[in-house]
């Protein structure tokens, strides 16, 4: 059972549906019409480009090329995190890149090698989608978590210094802020996990079923995807916070400026 291809003409017919949300965004003067149109165009261009390069990645199917793709993804994800968190490059770039690389490699290879037991774990058919989904999830969790961690530290400096001043180690004084970051970053994942299959059918499972897999196989992949994305996201944010802390505090534990200054204030 194969997947029915969508012709370009039918793709255009499908895209017409975007007219409905665009109409309401325009009617209620949300100011989001232009950004929605740009987002749709960007999505189309980016996905077409991905279609092209994935085609060649699958044709070459070479471990080095596949790893090169992962490195490029890590650089793009780290840059995206820098823009979305507004944390200074010198504080975040290296820690988050190491966090992404270590987590995606460890969890990805564990899954492909020990769970799927692939003869060739670098096989593009598995390597690319698994590493890709890990990267996507790690990025969103890191952005929420890092924003919560650093904005909490800025806002609740009195608590941080109260703990330090009463004998806390640097790790202990940071702990309440790491706790808040984890709660905020992982609560949506936990809520989604709890209702998975009840409220909505998850993406991986739908993709596999549309691709011709049996529902029995699809649910097992979905279970594993949830586990590996959750684990890799946790690992990456913990590594990033640990490494970024070295750049965010001075030798006496004083918080140094981590967010980029607003252009207005510069």
């Amino acid at each position: 059972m194969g997947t029915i291809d969508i012709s370009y003409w039918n793709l255009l017919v499908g895209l017409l549906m975007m007219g409905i949300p665009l109409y309401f965004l325009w009617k209620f003067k949300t100011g989001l019409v232009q950004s929605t149109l740009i987002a749709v165009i960007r999505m189309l261009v980016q996905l077409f480009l991905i279609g092209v390069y994935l085609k060649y990645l699958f044709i070459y199917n070479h471990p080095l090329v596949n790893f090169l793709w992962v490195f490029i993804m890590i650089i793009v994800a780290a840059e995206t995190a820098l823009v979305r968190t507004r944390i200074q490059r010198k504080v975040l770039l290296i820690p988050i890149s190491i966090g992404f690389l270590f987590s995606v490699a460890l969890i990805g290879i564990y899954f492909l090698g020990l769970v799927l037991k692939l003869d060739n774990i670098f096989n593009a058919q598995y390597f690319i989608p698994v590493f890709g989904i890990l990267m996507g999830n790690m990025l969103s969790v890191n952005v929420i978590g890092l924003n919560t961690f650093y904005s909490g530290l800025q806002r609740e400096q009195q608590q941080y210094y109260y703990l330090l001043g009463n004998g806390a180690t640097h790790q202990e004084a940071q702990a309440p802020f790491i706790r808040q970051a984890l709660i905020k970053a992982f609560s949506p994942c936990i809520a989604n996990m709890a209702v998975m299959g009840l409220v909505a059918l998850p993406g991986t499972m739908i993709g596999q079923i549309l691709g011709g897999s049996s529902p029995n196989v699809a649910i097992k992949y979905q279970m594993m995807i949830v586990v590996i994305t959750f684990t890799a996201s946790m690992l990456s944010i913990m590594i990033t916070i640990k490494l970024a802390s070295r750049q965010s505090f001075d030798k006496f534990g004083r918080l140094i400026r981590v967010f980029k200054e607003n252009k207005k204030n510069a």
Partner: protein
Amino acid sequence: MLKIEDACITYGELELFTGLCIHIKKGEIVCISGESGSGKTSILNAIMGFVPLKSGTITVDDLLLCEANIDLIRKKIAWIPQELALPCEWVSEMIQLPFELKANRGIHFSKTELFSTFKELNLEEELYTKRVSEISGGQRQRIMIAVAALLQKPFLIVDEPTSALDTVSVERVLNFFNILSQKGMTILAVSHDRTFKLGCDNIIYL
């Protein structure tokens, strides 16, 4: 207990003070006073390493304030900042917070001792089970003083401990500090309160 020698603190171009020397003996109660912006809170923060000195040295209990000693120095200190507002919902959480730290795990937290300290500071036991939002600023100040006392540190640093208290309560706090100092605790406070200042062993004007 505390030696500050030739200290200078600056914020950018602004020099708060220079050539400051303070010597405090074990068991003394010393109050720092002065105009707003003269650097009273900054010097307290500098003792804990939160504000850097431009020049000069700070020694706490024979330990020179430096990167290698900062954790050891902080372990000797109980610290109450000005208008402390911790993001805790319950008073009990706020009280127990410093007792959960590794440095303070050797100190057994006991409600009996807490309530006995509460009594000395004219606080009701019921406050322990209330929400932080339900207690007054003065009650919060005295609760934090009680907590600092229970931590049994040799050095108490407190910023404006009586700013929300009436004269009777100020005298009660002073009596309590005197009991602590007789037990060997050194107390360094910043205060504008005349009654409090006059009750201390020494006053330093900045």
